[in-house]
Each structure stands twice: as C-alpha cells, then as structure tokens.
C-alpha cells in the first residue's frame, strides 16, 4: 500500500461521521440535560470508527482482537462502576496514561510494520513526513504516559503531593526536550531503530521530570494539560494514518485540555509557564509560626447550628478538604434541614477548588445537590454581602482576602470568593496549624466575623446536623 492508494469514499465518510459524533458529544456538555445524549453520540461515534476500521482491513487475528477488547473493556467497565467519586482525579489521570501508552505502542507498531499503515515509499522506506508524525506522536504519547503516572501517584497518595525539586532541573528538562526534537529531525534522514527507541526513552524520562516538581494543588492544571497532550498524540497518529476521525478528535481533545489549563491558570492568577516550572508551595513552612499565636474565635457545633438556623441565606463554600473527608452527603443533609427551617442555601464553587476542573460539582451532584443551587465564582461573588452565613468547608486559599489586598502575598491577584463580606463566616478546618497549599496564612481566620469550627469536616457537619435535627 502507498500513500497514493485512496480509501473508498464511504470509509472517509464514516470516519467523518465518527468525528462529527465526537464534536456533538462535547457540544452536549453545554447543559446537563443535553449531556447524556451527547455521551451516547460519543459511544456511537466510537463504534462507527471501530467497525469501519475492521471492515476495511484484512483482519488476520480477529479472535485475539476480540479478546483484547473484552479484557480491556471489562476492566474499564468494572473500574467505572466501582470507582468512588472522590477518586475521579486519579481515575482520569490513570486513563490519560493509557491513551499515552496506546499512542506509543501504535507508533512503535507503525515503525516496525510500516507497510500495514501504508506509509512506505516505493523502496520500502518510511515516508519522511510520516517519520515526523510518528516521532511526534510517540514522544507526546510517552510524555502523557509517564506524566500521568506521576500525577496518578500524587493524587492517589502513593507519592507525596509536595513538589520534589531536582537541582538544575530547568536545564535538564530543556536539554532533554531539545534532544527529543533533534532526534525527530534526524529521524527524517535516518530511520535506524536506535534513533526511534532513544527518542521514545527520552520522552518517557521527560514526562517524569516535568511532573515530579509540580505540587498537589497545581494538579488541576497538570491534569488538564495531560488531557490536552493525550489529544495531540492521537492527532499526530491521525496524521500518520490519514484518518479524519482521529485528527478531529485529537484536535478537539487537545484544545479542550488547553482551554481547561488556561481556565485553571487564570483562576490561580498564575502563568502556565510558572505552573509547569513547578515548585509552588515548596516554602510552605515559612510564616505560620507567627500566625498560630494570633487570637481567633472558636465555635462549637451548637453555635454553628444556631447561627445557621437564624440565617436567611447561607452560602456553602466547599473545597478539597470536603472531598478528603467525604463530607458531601452529610453536608447535603445539613442543607436539607436548613431548607426546612426556611433558610435559602446556595453553593459557591471556585474554579480550582479540588484537584481537577469541576471536581466539587461532581461530588455535590453525587450527594444529590440540585445543580441549580450550585454557582460559579463570578455568578455568586456579589451575593456574599447580602448573606448571613458563609459556610467554608475544606477550602482555604480560595477564600483568602489577602489575595485582594496584600501585594506581597504569593496568591495576590488570584480571584477569590468574598466570603468575608458575609455577616458571619463559619470556617470548618481540622486545626489552626495547617496552612493552605500556597503556604500562606489566611487572615480570614482572625477576623471578628469569623468563627472557626476546628474538627474533621465530616464529624463537624454530623454534629451540626444532630443539633439541627
């Protein structure tokens, strides 16, 4: 087969339809009602792509292929059914790593058996364009794989979420990156196996090197970035195979991940480069010694229940701590009891609350919180001034007023929720000792209208529920 050998028109159309199904799958996510239909279209698109591929190739090993699909699909379905919603970030990271690895394997197979992919010239050598595409696809795939593995280990707690800083890492990283690009360029001149395997190995290495220095709290950016990479690697493979479904999907996923990274960076007021350079939060211990001595007001569950019951409007601000404590269900019970008392309850979500984009929304949805009670930062921030109680649970830096006033603060300029404007702030926190991921003290703790509820998030909410009930 050769590049010039055209695929039949119906095949091109089938792949195009698959691509359109994927576009509509994402389009459906513009609202929860249409999202379920979108997801089904995604599945249809995938089925079309798989069936078309099998139909136009002489399949020498249908039994093995069916076996691979059954095994892989079975593992996927069981995992999807069993996984806890709080573990979504890890799961997504693990899935990203699989896409990356699949891209590497496909690239390697294309390198070893280029005839099957129709990318050889008359003399049997791989076409130079295809070499660049394979090289890029494999490199991005390998980075996605090893980066996602590290992200998974950090999110799953197998590896410390603290940034690990290697000396001279910037030079090391840039050097490796340059070497990879150099090898891809050289690959077009010489298709010896050592070039291919060296560049693959270097790409695996740089994935580790890039993600290891990035702290746990920057994971929303990292996980979106890896999402984007997995798309670009699929697109690169699509170029190799001249397959429009893969190219469309790769472009969609690539831009989706890139946009999410951008949204996350903007929500932290940090540049993408500074996140990737890593090391944020590495100086976490500076300055909290002085902070602990400052006076603050401490309240009990009884005080909290009293204040909540008297309120006209309560805004709940959840953060990663709520996910860790698995407090979302109890929190919804509390909200239900308050609603029975005639209190208006709303939820305010900061874009970077949690460990991945939209993390809090999923957890609240899991706890049966109607999504029309859940608001994004811009939509609800002006309401705190007319709110009686802001109930902060497991969030910290995203409520820190220093981001608006203190130019020396590392989080200065980050958009924050104006919780301090509420008449009373109830702040659930395990202890006064710990600081948020940015390593800064939160002046909110010491304000007159703040009451600290020091306990495990879930236990505290359970206590409050008991008091209300």
């Amino acid at each position, binding site marked *: 087969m050769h590049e010039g050998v055209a695929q039949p028109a119906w095949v*091109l159309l089938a792949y195009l339809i698959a*691509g359109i199904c994927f*576009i509509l*799958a*994402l389009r459906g*996510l513009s609202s*929860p009602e249409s*999202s379920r239909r979108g*997801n089904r279209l*995604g599945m249809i*698109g*995938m089925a079309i792509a798989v069936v078309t*591929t*099998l139909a136009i*190739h*002489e399949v*020498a*090993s249908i039994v093995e*292929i069916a076996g*691979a699909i059954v095994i*892989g699909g079975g593992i*996927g379905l069981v*995992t*999807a059914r069993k996984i806890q919603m709080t573990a*979504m970030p890890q*799961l*997504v990271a693990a*899935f*990203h790593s*699989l*896409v990356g690895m*699949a891209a590497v394997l*496909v690239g390697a*197979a*294309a390198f*070893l*058996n280029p*005839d099957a992919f129709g990318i050889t010239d008359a003399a049997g050598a791989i076409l130079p364009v295809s070499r660049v595409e394979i090289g890029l696809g494999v490199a991005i795939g390998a980075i996605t794989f090893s980066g996602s593995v590290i992200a998974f280990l950090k999110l799953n707690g197998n590896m410390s979420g603290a940034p690990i800083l290697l000396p001279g890492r910037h030079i090391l990283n840039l050097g490796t990156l340059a070497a990879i690009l150099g090898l891809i360029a050289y690959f077009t001149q010489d298709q010896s196996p050592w070039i291919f395997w060296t560049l693959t190995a270097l790409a695996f290495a740089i994935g580790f090197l890039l993600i290891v220095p990035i702290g746990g709290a920057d994971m929303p950016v990292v996980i979106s970035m890896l*999402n984007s990479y*997995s798309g670009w690697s*699929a697109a690169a493979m699509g170029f190799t195979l001249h397959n*429009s479904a*893969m*190219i469309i999907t*790769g*472009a*969609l996923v690539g*831009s989706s991940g890139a946009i*999410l990274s951008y*949204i996350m960076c903007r929500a932290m007021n940090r540049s993408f480069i500074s996140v990737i350079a890593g090391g944020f939060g590495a100086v976490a211990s500076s300055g909290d010694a002085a902070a602990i001595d400052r006076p603050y007001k401490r309240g009990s569950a009884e005080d909290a229940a009293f204040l909540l019951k008297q309120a006209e409007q309560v805004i709940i601000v959840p953060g990663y701590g709520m996910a860790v404590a698995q407090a979302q269900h109890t929190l919804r019970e509390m909200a*239900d009891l308050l609603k029975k008392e005639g209190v208006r309850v709303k939820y305010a979500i900061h874009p970077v609350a949690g460990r*991945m*984009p*939209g*993390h809090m*929304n999923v957890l609240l*949805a899991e706890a049966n919180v*109607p*999504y*029309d009670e859940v608001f994004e930062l811009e939509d609800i921030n002006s309401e705190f001034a007319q709110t009686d109680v802001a109930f902060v649970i497991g969030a910290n830096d995203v409520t820190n007023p220093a981001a608006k006033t203190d130019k020396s603060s590392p989080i200065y300029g980050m958009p924050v929720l104006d919780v301090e404007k509420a008449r009373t702030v109830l702040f659930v926190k395990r202890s006064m000792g710990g600081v948020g991921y940015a390593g800064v003290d939160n002046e909110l703790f010491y304000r007159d209208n703040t009451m600290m509820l020091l306990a495990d998030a879930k236990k505290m909410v359970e206590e409050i529920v008991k008091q209300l009930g």
Partner: protein
Amino acid sequence: MDFIAILSIFVLACFVGYFVVWSVTPALHTPLMSVTNAISSVIVVGALIAAAAAGSPTAKWLGLVAVALASVNIFGGFAVTARMLAMYKKKERRDA
C-alpha cells in the same frame, strides 16, 4: 488525502474544539475530561490496524496490547461519564 487536506481538517477542528469547549458549563468540566479521555481512545483505530495486519508479529502484539489499553479507556471512560451525568439533577423531585 494529501498533507494539506489533512492539515486543513486539523486546523478547522481545532477551531471547532475551541468554540465547543468554551460553551461547556464549568459544572460539567469533570465529565468533559472523562469524555474527552474516552474519545481520544479513537487511537484504537491505529491499534486495530497494527493488530490486524500480518507481517510483523511484534507489531501485531504491540497492536493487541494497545487495543486492550484503549478499550479500558473507551468502555471505562464512557461508562464513568454516563455515571456522573446521571447524577446531575435539577431541583424539586424529592426535596420539595
């Protein structure tokens, strides 16, 4: 298809992606990640070609492993997305 035709598809799809993704509501950003994850497993097309072809046994096995990995993602990704989306409910029903 020649390279320029493919490149055109790619560039236009990037624009489509840009506009479509900005219209996704932030509340659904996690399902967005899991569904993009599932659809990026369309790389299974490449894996199937490698696994189906005669010629190089190594390439065939690499292809089969890639088919299995991509299948985990396809089935797992769509299933977990469906599970999440099923949880998003509007007000009333039980609480009213």
